[in-house]
C-alpha cells in the first residue's frame, strides 16, 4: 500500500541552526509531493509542492526519486517555524492525498 513515512515525531533545534525534516514515500511511479504545515491553533495549510520548485519562508524540498525522499530543509531555523509539519503524496493525476504522521518542529531560542 502507498505509504508516507516521517520517522521523527519531534525535532528540536536551536534558532539559527539548519533544519531537515525527513519524508520518504513508497509510490514508484510519478508522485506529487507536498509539505503541509500547521501552526499552533491554526489550520493545516500548504507550505510547498515539489512541482513548483519554489522556496517558501526559506524552506525548500527536493524530490529524490532514487531514495524516494522529499526532505524539507531550511538553512537557518526561526522561532516562528515551530509547528507541525506533514508530508503528503498523491498519485500523479489524482486528488487523493496520503499523509505522513507528521513531525513536530520546535525551534528553541
Amino acid at each position, binding site marked *: 500500500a502507498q505509504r508516507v513515512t516521517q520517522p521523527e515525531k519531534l525535532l528540536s533545534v536551536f534558532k539559527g541552526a539548519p533544519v531537515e525534516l525527513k519524508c520518504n514515500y513508497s509510490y514508484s511511479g510519478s508522485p506529487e509531493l507536498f509539505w503541509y504545515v500547521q501552526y499552533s491553533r491554526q*489550520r*493545516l495549510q500548504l507550505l510547498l509542492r515539489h512541482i513548483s520548485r519554489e522556496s517558501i519562508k526559506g524552506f525548500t524540498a527536493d524530490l529524490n526519486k532514487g531514495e524516494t525522499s522529499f526532505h524539507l530543509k531550511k538553512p537557518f531555523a526561526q522561532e516562528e517555524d515551530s509547528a507541525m509539519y506533514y508530508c503528503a503524496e498523491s498519485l500523479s493525476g489524482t*486528488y487523493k492525498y496520503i499523509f505522513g504522521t507528521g513531525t513536530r518542529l520546535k525551534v528553541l531560542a
Partner: protein
Amino acid sequence: GAGVSQSPRYKVAKRGQDVALRCDPISGHVSLFWYQQALGQGPEFLTYFQNEAQLDKSGLPSDRFFAERPEGSVSTLKIQRTQQEDSAVYLCASSLAQGIYEQYFGPGTRLTVT
C-alpha cells in the same frame, strides 16, 4: 475571502448516538474532501466529492459513515451509532477543481465519543 468553515468545532457524543458534521467549502470550489485525523496521526482520506457527485468513498471506515453534498456546496458527514474508535478530528478540505490543486483545509471538528 472566507476560508473553509466547519461546525461544530467540538462535539461530544455518547456511544451509540448519531452525529452530523458540517462543512462549508470555499465558494466556487468544485472538489470537497473529508479526512479523519486520529490523535498522533496524519489526516486519512475518507471521501471525495466533485460538485454533488461522491466519486470516491473508499476511505469510509464502515457503513456507519455517510457523507453527502446534495447541492454541490455544503457537505455533511454523518456518523451513525458512534463508537469510541470514532473519536478523532474530522477535517474538510476543498479545492478549485479536479486534479492536483491545492487543498484548503477547514479548522476541523473534534469528535469525542464517551
